[in-house]
């Protein structure tokens, strides 16, 4: 049993990179959606897709890396049900950071727009142009994102509560600095 209080550094770096990119891509997605047609709208859509594909790749690396280590144990003072909920929420967050960009990529293909990462790397269209499928995937993409919003809120609120209210050394788990490590 590992006694580490902190996730391995690559996992920490990937966590914050993905978090940062989600904090850009999410509001961008909400904002760009209702804009009237303009070159800026086309640019924002492309940036959103490029960020999303970047998240997908980082998330895939994260999930693969996650199988190689045992995460730091949760504080023993936390109730068993809290352990269970924590594992479920973490699992769902991993699923969503993969499923959301994937649904966006598929939606783009179904709407007839290939995704070309940074305007350089064309990704294959995994589904053909299909208007009804495009609209369905748009709904899926939106629903997954609002699920993510709720889960991220829970995730952040729980971390803050354990750290500041219960005064557990909780933030160290994902800290970029190694200070306070045994």
């Amino acid at each position, binding site marked *: 049993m590992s006694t580490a209080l902190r996730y391995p550094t690559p996992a920490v770096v990937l966590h914050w990179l993905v978090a940062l990119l989600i904090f850009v891509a999410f509001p961008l997605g909400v904002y760009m959606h209702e804009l009237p047609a303009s070159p800026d709208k086309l640019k924002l859509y492309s940036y959103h897709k490029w960020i999303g594909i970047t998240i997908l790749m980082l998330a895939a690396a994260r999930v693969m890396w996650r199988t190689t280590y045992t995460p730091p144990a949760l504080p023993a003072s936390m109730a068993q049900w809290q352990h269970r909920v924590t594992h479920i929420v973490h699992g769902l967050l991993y699923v969503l950071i993969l499923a959301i960009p994937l649904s966006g990529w598929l939606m783009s293909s179904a*709407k007839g*727009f290939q*995704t070309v990462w940074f305007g350089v790397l064309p990704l294959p269209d995994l589904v053909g142009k299909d208007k009804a499928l495009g609209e369905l995937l748009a709904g899926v993409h939106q629903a997954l994102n609002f699920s993510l919003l709720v889960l991220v809120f829970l995730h952040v609120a729980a971390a803050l509560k354990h750290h500041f209210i219960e005064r557990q050394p909780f933030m160290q788990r994902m800290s970029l600095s190694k200070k306070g490590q045994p």
Partner: protein
Amino acid sequence: MSMKRIFNALALLAVLASPAAGAGEYRTVLPGQSTIGFEFSQMGVPIKGGFKRFAVQMAFDPARPEAGRAQIDIDLASIDAGSSEADEESAGRLWFNRSAYPSAKFVSSRIRALGGNRYEMRGTLTLKGRSREMIVPVTFKPGKAAATFDGAFILKRLDFGIGEGMWADVATVANEVQVTFRIAASGK
């Protein structure tokens, strides 16, 4: 002889007897087998589109290509610009300004044989009130039921003011539009 064989033999006779089977002048365009498409790059992404309604008047005899002529009228309202949002946007003043210029017209001026089945068609394309001389390479393929004329050329959208103002930014929507067409025609 089975019924199927008799039918096949009759079908062959019918094809051989049809005017299109021999050489001659092609002038009856088959709209169902003819297409006009285009492709352009938007933020590095290839976008395909086309026009569903167009009228072609033509006469072409491979024995006398220089006497050939073609006129194509395209109903710009029949555009498929890749998405319904783009279809709507393309009607606007900055793009085709379709309420003022509902159609595009190409009129050939000169057809020249390049050897083999290849020809060069010169003509004037009028789009959004602007006329430009175009040189269009065409490949002619004779067929039993119909001949096909395949062509492709690059159109620079800004030459015709397609995408003005903010849309003149070619870094977002490329200036070059690859136009491809296939016109199928039968003889006389």
